[in-house]
């Protein structure tokens, strides 16, 4: 019988948030503030803090050797959960039992010092991550080879390119050989070749019966690595079970979330936007809902939108991304010279793509609306995902495939 690697029972975590005006950065502020509120009402000093439950009541069990994806929107409590499990912060109540050595990849490069050489930093961060010196000496060559920085190992890391830095940092973490590995979004770093390497490494860990807990926004990597997902929402477990269903539920509930890269530009709160997409439907040419397309099939995408006030000069766009984040194609109204009138209230717009001659893979449709003349972003939201089917064509063939014409030479 397999033992439980992780058992979480009613974990809860409360944070005190201090309103900006009431921040007590210095003792004097704190004293003055407590005195003031104490004079007003006796128990106000306690009420001065706003509290916020990042986790309300989380219980689950994870067996040894399982790989579990943790999904949920920003602020659902995913990172807090990992922080508790890696003992960085304590739960307010509840308990967790962990069997085995925990390696966490909450952030690569923790403890790196820019002035120290690659070699020195390896030993340092190894020690920080809980590797003994003997262990580090044994694995040193493997780590350096994994990071592909043999020539620069004695150069201070401040002279490294960011790619080299990340590779070195991840290499240490990857060689921890933990019984339980906690990963938070770390695979989004580095170039594609390195990402693949990381995924392979994690798969090796899985094969050697390590337990992996994997937090990500990328449903594709979750799908490819985990058979089970735990979907957190508002500090509670919303769903715990097979990945397919969990991801479907998550996508159903969060499909129109702002794209991570756009959060800085338009903010995460969709209600604040002048124009937002309220639904994105993908269908076949005849308008029937569809999520699996044959290679060369056309796709109909309907975008429903809601404009607050009048929105002029909008340029609707849809982008298709492959699961490894390769941008495959993009269509927008401005490029296709489709006139868009001033918008107000609700409405919908449809696009029929040319035959999609993409290779067999998983894709996602992202919706991006810009102002045509100024180019600034009105909204950028995650849309639904779809599969393309083909017996032969896969990512080794490239991005798309179309028959070419051949002939014999004279």
């Amino acid at each position, binding site marked *: *019988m*397999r*033992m439980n690697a992780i058992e979480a029972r009613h974990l809860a975590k409360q*944070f005190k948030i201090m309103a900006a005006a009431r921040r*007590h*950065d*210095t*003792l*004097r502020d*704190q004293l003055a503030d407590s005195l003031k509120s104490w004079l007003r009402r006796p128990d106000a000093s306690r009420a001065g803090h706003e509290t916020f439950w990042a986790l309300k009541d989380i219980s689950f069990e994870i067996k040894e*050797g399982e790989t579990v994806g943790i999904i949920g929107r920003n602020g659902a409590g995913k990172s807090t959960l990992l*922080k*508790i*499990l*890696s*003992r*960085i*912060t*304590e*739960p*307010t*109540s*509840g*308990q*967790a*039992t*962990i*069997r*085995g*050595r*925990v390696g*966490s990849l*909450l*952030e690569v490069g*923790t*403890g790196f*010092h820019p*002035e*120290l050489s690659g070699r*020195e930093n390896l*030993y*340092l961060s190894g*020690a*920080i*991550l*809980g590797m*003994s*010196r003997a262990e580090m000496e044994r694995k040193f060559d493997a780590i350096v080879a994994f990071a592909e920085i043999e020539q620069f190992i004695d150069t201070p890391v401040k002279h490294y390119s960011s790619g080299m830095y990340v590779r070195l940092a991840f290499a240490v973490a990857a060689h921890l050989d933990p*019984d339980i590995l906690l990963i938070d979004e770390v695979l989004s770093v580095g170039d594609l070749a390195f990402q693949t390497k990381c995924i392979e490494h994690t798969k090796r860990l899985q*094969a*050697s*019966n390590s337990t992996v807990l994997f937090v990500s926004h990328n449903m594709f990597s979750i799908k490819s690595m985990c058979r089970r997902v735990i979907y957190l929402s508002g500090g509670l477990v919303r769903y715990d079970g097979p990945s397919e269903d969990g991801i479907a539920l998550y996508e159903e509930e969060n499909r129109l979330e702002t794209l991570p890269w756009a959060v800085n530009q338009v903010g995460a709160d969709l209600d604040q936007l002048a124009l937002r997409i309220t639904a994105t439907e993908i269908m076949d040419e005849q308008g029937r809902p569809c999520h699996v397309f044959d290679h060369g099939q056309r796709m109909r995408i309907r975008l429903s939108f809601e404009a607050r006030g009048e929105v002029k000069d909008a340029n609707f766009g849809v982008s298709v991304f492959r699961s490894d984040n390769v941008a495959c194609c993009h269509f927008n109204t401005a490029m296709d010279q489709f006139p868009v009138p001033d918008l107000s209230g609700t409405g919908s717009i449809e696009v029929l793509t040319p035959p999609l001659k993409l290779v067999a893979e998983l894709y996602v449709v992202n919706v991006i609306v810009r102002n045509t003349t100024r180019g600034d972003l009105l909204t950028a939201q995650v849309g639904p995902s779809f599969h393309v089917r083909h017996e032969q064509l896969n990512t080794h063939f490239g991005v798309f495939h179309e028959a070419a014409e051949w002939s014999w030479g004279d």
Partner: protein
Amino acid sequence: MSTPVTLAAPTAESSKPIVLIGPRRGLLDLDLWAVWQYRELLYFLAWRETKVRYKQTMLGVAWAIFQPLLTVMIFAAIFGSFAKIPSDGLPYPVFAFAALLPWIYFSEATVRSSTSLVSDANLLRKVYFPRLIIPLAAVIAPIVDFALAFVVLFGMMRWYRVAPTWNVLFLPLFLVLALATALAVGLWLSALNVKYRDVRHTVPFVMQVWMYASPIVYPVSLVPEQWRLLFALNPMTGVIEGFRWGLLGKQSPDFALIGASAVVVVGLLFGGLVFFRRMERIFADVV
């Protein structure tokens, strides 16, 4: 279940460490054992402190010598030559240097450990390890500078023909007392500093006052009789008197008083540990 080839023999299974995570209860749960388990990290952090300190400086490690040397020259000029402060019959530079070395160590250790948690905030937020390691490494690292300057002190003693006594063997004890004092203060202040950054501004000032409250530029004999007892309770008085006793053959310090101040230090250290452990829970959340 198929048996994995790689590891997981039954013995390996049962030897996996089990960690219980939950809100901590009890004041005296100091968990010093964890610090011992992480002793290699302690070594590496102390090593990093030393290694990084003089990187990209032209004089490098020589700074560890120049700084105390220049200070003692200034002291010798102002307090020795101009103010003519007595030095119990010893050459003033040697008299001051023997006290300045443990003092510089103590003040470095205190200042660095007080700010240590905040300057390593990144580690606190990202990785687990016993937090005590951080201020501990900060009080250990300056020992290297101390040792380097100590060589210079011996050179100076030869120059002034002052021979050390066998009591020099007791010096490590006094160094430990200085370390314990710095750690005790550092534990309190570093934990406070996480929440209240006032500490950063207060510490340099406190250290300056503390320096003049310790017999560095003047001998204890200059202190009025009725204040001696209170004066001796300052642990650094004991440390400095101990150094002068061991190195310069001055009359032995009052060990009863040193014992008394050691008791104070131990109390402060223990309180600091408890306080630190209590505050530890919120470090990662507020730092």
